[in-house]
């Protein structure tokens, strides 16, 4: 794994220079975009067979102000951000750490608890050096007892602290399901509003590189029915930091889903303080022909497929829904009203996943605007196999997305 991510650093420096031969010029100067292309963030997709693709992640980045507004701001308003200070470049896990550190400095009640978050710095280094800075009690190394330390976080949240509970891998939080479902989600209601639970539960999940079935779980589908919690999924360093900060500041219990494979994404983010609205979706690429709804790692598969689709003459609109619970029906609805075709690409399993709920929500609210049935591409209903080839076929690949769009737009 280490070898792959060293390549990212090299790729990042390569692609940040304007004379990058890997950049397809067509993509950069597409006339549809009404904002100027700035320094582009880049990432590397490494296939399981070892081939490496460089790609660009052209998207609009809104300079979010701290005041959250319900309506997702449009793409043009982000033009202002390019002329302000250039920001700094960092990897996604560093962005998470920066967000966490800033919030811990801002509010002394914010504390972190989890396995190996303190001295070890976090299994994915999200809490690196925080224990040295804030002390062992504020960045608490817990014993391996997920149910109990999540419950402890909930008790601490009820009595005035603002804990951030880390599941070393999201799958481990299955052990904490009792506390998350019964206490985290429900206690505010069951107590008649007397106790708030401003807890953030975060951790890496999703299908990684041959991690095996139990380390490749997508818990967003299991947690989505729990009333009283909010779920968000981050996908870029910008929204990772923004969502982390917003989640910590929120009075509601928030579950922040990170992805194991996205921790080494590099991007330039603003220096100033900003948050990303927890309930809003992100417009990645405006388009006309089809709406593609996605989140987390699948965003990058979709953008890769978008490259191919643009070459073939399609114009997909890509939205990173970010807020898994509740859905941002405004952004999604506007998109559906524009394109009339919806494709959902997700990493959850087909049965009972986020895509299934989203399909239902769109059908309920926007049925009249649809020209074709909603297509939902999800992972196979299979425990993630170890073998690289099988694992590749479990999740949705860009080629399948291209085929699906072609089918949808027929």
């Amino acid at each position, binding site marked *: 794994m280490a070898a792959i991510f060293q390549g990212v650093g090299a790729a990042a420096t390569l692609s940040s220079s304007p004379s990058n031969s890997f950049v397809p010029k067509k993509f950069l100067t597409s006339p549809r975009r009404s904002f100027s292309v700035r320094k582009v963030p880049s990432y590397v997709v490494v296939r399981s067979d070892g081939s490496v693709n460089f790609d660009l992640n052209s998207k609009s980045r809104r300079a979010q102000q701290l005041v*959250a507004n*319900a*309506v997702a701001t449009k793409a043009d308003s982000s033009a202002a951000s390019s002329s302000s200070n250039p920001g700094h470049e960092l990897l996604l896990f560093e962005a998470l750490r920066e967000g966490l550190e800033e919030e811990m400095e801002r509010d*002394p*009640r914010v*504390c972190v608890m989890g396995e190996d978050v303190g001295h070890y710095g976090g299994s994915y280094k999200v809490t690196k050096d925080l224990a040295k800075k804030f002390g062992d*009690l*504020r960045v608490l190394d*817990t*014993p391996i*007892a997920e*149910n*109990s*330390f*999540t*419950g*402890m*976080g*909930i*008790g*601490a*949240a*009820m*009595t*005035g*602290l603002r804990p951030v509970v880390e599941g070393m891998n999201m799958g481990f939080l299955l052990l904490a399901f*009792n*506390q998350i479902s*019964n*206490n985290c989600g429900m*206690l*505010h*209601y*069951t*107590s*008649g*509003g*007397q*106790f708030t*639970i401003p807890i953030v539960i975060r951790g890496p999940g999703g299908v990684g590189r041959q991690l095996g079935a139990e380390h490749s779980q997508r818990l967003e589908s299991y947690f989505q029915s729990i*009333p*009283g919690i*909010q779920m968000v999924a981050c996908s870029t360093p910008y929204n990772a930091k923004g969502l982390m900060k917003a989640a910590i500041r*929120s*009075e*509601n219990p928030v579950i922040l889903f990170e992805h194991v494979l996205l921790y080494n994404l590099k991007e330039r983010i603003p220096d100033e303080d900003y948050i990303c609205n*927890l*309930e*809003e979706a992100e417009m990645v690429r405006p388009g006309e022909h089809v709406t593609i709804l996605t989140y987390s790692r699948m965003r990058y598969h979709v953008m890769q497929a978008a490259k191919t689709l643009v070459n073939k003459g399609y114009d997909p609109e890509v939205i990173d829904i970010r*807020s898994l*619970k*509740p*859905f*941002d*029906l*405004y*952004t999604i*609805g506007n998109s559906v009203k524009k394109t009339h075709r919806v494709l959902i690409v997700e990493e959850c399993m087909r049965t009972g996943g986020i895509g299934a709920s989203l399909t239902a929500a769109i059908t309920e*609210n*926007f049925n009249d605007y649809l020209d074709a049935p909603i297509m939902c591409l999800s992972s196979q209903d299979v425990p993630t196999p170890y073998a690289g080839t099988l694992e590749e076929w479990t999740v949705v690949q860009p080629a399948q997305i291209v085929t699906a769009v072609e089918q949808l737009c027929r």
Partner: protein
Amino acid sequence: MATAFSTAKFSTQPFPLNPTSTTSHDSSIVFARPTSQFLGSTRKFRLTSSSKFNLSRRSKTVVAVSDVVKQKKSKSSPSLLITKEEGLDLYEDMVLGRAFEDMCAQMYYRGKMFGFVHLYNGQEAVSTGFIKLLKQQDSVVSTYRDHVHALSKGVPARAVMSELFGKTTGCCRGQGGSMHMFSREHNLLGGFAFIGEGIPVATGAAFTSKYKREVLKEADCDHVTLAFFGDGTCNNGQFFECLNMAALWKLPIVFVVENNLWAIGMSHLRATSDPHIYKKGPAFGMPGIHVDGMDVLKVREVAKEAIGRARRGEGPTLVECETYRFRGHSLADPDELRDPAEKARYAARDPITALKKYLIENSLASEAELKTIEKKIDEVVEDAVEFADESPVPSRSQLLENVFADPKGFGIGPDGRYRCEDPKFTEGTAHV
């Protein structure tokens, strides 16, 4: 000298246990019972500290406690464990608990409350013995058998009764019910339906207390948390995980086991490999104490020490109170499995009658005074029922309130506004 509770491995006499008996025959269970019930815990500790039972390995740790108690005894004789005011206070609290629970049963059979209602009759000594020693800022975490814990902590009987009736004036606005009593004002952190679920929450509250003292530098923060749970919970993973964490970080918490020997129909002896729950404390590095839970004064003595320990920052304590519930597990439980002889034996040790006897024998109170208290409690309970009867039921608009502390969590609707801004949806939150 080692502090009293540092590595207390003391047990009382070894018991001949008959694991094959499926009903609890009283011959097989011998718990330490001093001849005079209300000498409090002194006699028990003195027994063990004298090398009568050759507990030399253990006597070292026990000595300090019995020393303290011995001193008390020698200061003035006869020394009483409580003053008159304290005694009346305890009596009133226990009578309130009993009368309230009896009224609950009545109301349930009259169809005023529904669902699962778990009554606390017989166990009042534990609740009163512990909770009456707390300050308002101390926290209590309970289980589904939480009505009396709420009352002892200070939640008004009216609020509890109307919560049981499902009215909007209940302590949880009618949204919690019998098993979920919460009170921010009185720091009652629930009321949990699953056993063991509240123990981590209690550990978290204790963690906050430690955090406030050490990180937020509120030097005078010495809030203690009490976690109440039953014998069945002591076989649950959350119990052990929290014992570990509490001892590891020396959290200011007391784990109070209300061992009433029965989990619905499962006898504690049939479910547990080693039925001595207090022994599980020293396995994690905290003192484990066994006390007669039918005797409020003994419980109070032990509670004083345990709570004091926690306040001083010396860490957690595990207290096992041997007690008994006179009624079934819940009002839906026909209670057929328990041996009537066992029930009779414990009924003879009713904590309220025992305290009454003690108060009268030691001239702390007269019959008349106690009668006045009982009458007053009857009125309080009657008033609570009346209040609950007359309170309004929750309206439709209350349904979606309080789901989120920040109602923006309901999300953005198709029209671009937050759903909670739509007056027809809900305001999303309401002040209690």
